[in-house]
């Protein structure tokens, strides 16, 4: 991780190429994290851009966790996505819920795939919407983005025990919610 340490040092020194290198390394991961937070690929693009702009603005405060900048990046991304207004998210979900026009024959398969993944993510987000925001965030970081408990704790600036308890409560709640849904069905 010496390379990452050097990268962060260059970033702190104001080297624009270091920011570009950081984006090249982690842009996709942050993009997907933001997609899982928003349920919208376009929104995730904007959020990704915002995350790295915030990284640049606060480059002197970049923190390494176990020689990795990734937990701090996820922390910034989580905060950026959290601050997307509820109304905007509601609007996006409403738009996403509208009936889709039939796929044109000349559309690339990839477009269809993205529409499908958006619908699927919206369904997942709808299912976890009943969770408190801090439990959703832990779920997103650990269960969906694959961070360790320690990395998630660093990202959220909370003790590891808090991450464990939030995740445990989230899973318990989800079990109740989904099994209740099954009973109703």
């Amino acid at each position, binding site marked *: 991780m010496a390379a990452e340490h050097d990268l962060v040092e260059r970033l702190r020194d104001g080297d624009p190429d270091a920011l*570009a290198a950081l984006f090249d390394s982690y842009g996709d991961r942050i993009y997907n994290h933001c997609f899982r937070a928003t349920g919208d690929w376009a929104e995730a693009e904007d959020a990704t851009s915002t995350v790295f702009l915030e990284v640049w603005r*606060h480059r002197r405060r970049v923190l390494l966790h176990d020689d990795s900048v990734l937990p701090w990046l996820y922390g910034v991304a989580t*905060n950026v996505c959290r601050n*997307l207004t509820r109304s905007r998210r509601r609007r996006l979900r409403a738009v996403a819920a509208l009936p889709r026009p039939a796929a044109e024959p000349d559309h690339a398969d990839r477009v269809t795939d993205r529409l499908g993944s958006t619908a699927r993510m919206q369904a*997942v987000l709808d299912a976890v919407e009943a969770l408190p925001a801090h439990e959703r965030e832990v779920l997103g970081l650990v269960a969906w983005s694959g961070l360790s408990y320690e990395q998630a704790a660093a990202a959220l600036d909370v003790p590891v025990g808090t991450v464990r308890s939030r995740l445990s409560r989230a899973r318990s709640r989800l079990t109740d919610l989904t099994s209740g849904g099954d009973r109703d069905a």
Partner: protein
Amino acid sequence: MRDLTPPPDEPLPDQSRARIRAELLEAAQQPPRGRRWLVPAVVAAAVVLVSALTAWAVQLGPDDESGAPAVAPTTSAPVPEPTPPDPTATGPSDPDDPGDHWAGHGPCAQELRNPFPGAEQAAAFDEHTSLWVKGDRFALCDIRDRTTVHGPRPLAPVEEIGTYAVSTIFTDSGKVTRVAGGVVPDGALAYDVAYTFPDGQTVRAETTEGGGRTWWRVVHSYESSGNEMKQPPIEVTVSYSGVQERYVLDWATDTCAQVNHGC
């Protein structure tokens, strides 16, 4: 039980990746906004300091028989106050005359003439605090026991400790009043500023609109006890756009934002 597995990861589309990368490089290669105003700010501060010293030296005049060279007052030492005017003396014929008035006791427009000539009021929180703008800078004016004018700062907020400096007024009743304020950055989401003072109180900023901008202000008065240098420092927490900054104000350096009278 419903499937809560998100769809598989996808890479950023190539066009989007190129666009974002170009935007990032462009933003990173712009000169830091905080530097552009530094030179004029230093010059302005020097002019104010020289003016104040000149006025002080003239006021001492031939009565000063000590022969000691004039020494610039520092923020850590008490600043000599001008003698209050004789109540029987005739005031300036023009009430807006910036000349021979008791510094810190005029209206904002008058107190601002020296450090920030030509500024016009853009917003006000109440009868105490107003914000004045000229060009790309602004200054805060606060009228309580005294009129306190902060040094002009850029309208485009700079994320640095100086943005959160407080002015300080000690009153005869043993209280100290700290005032801070500024511009809420355009597009900042969930902007929040909170100050924790030596008396343990945390005060969150209030905001108001004016001149096409959103402004924030923090005011806090508390009992002043002993040497403030030995008290816990004032701490500032700033949250916006998902990022939190913490600043610890240095006594004197960051707690004497006023430019029209001493601390």
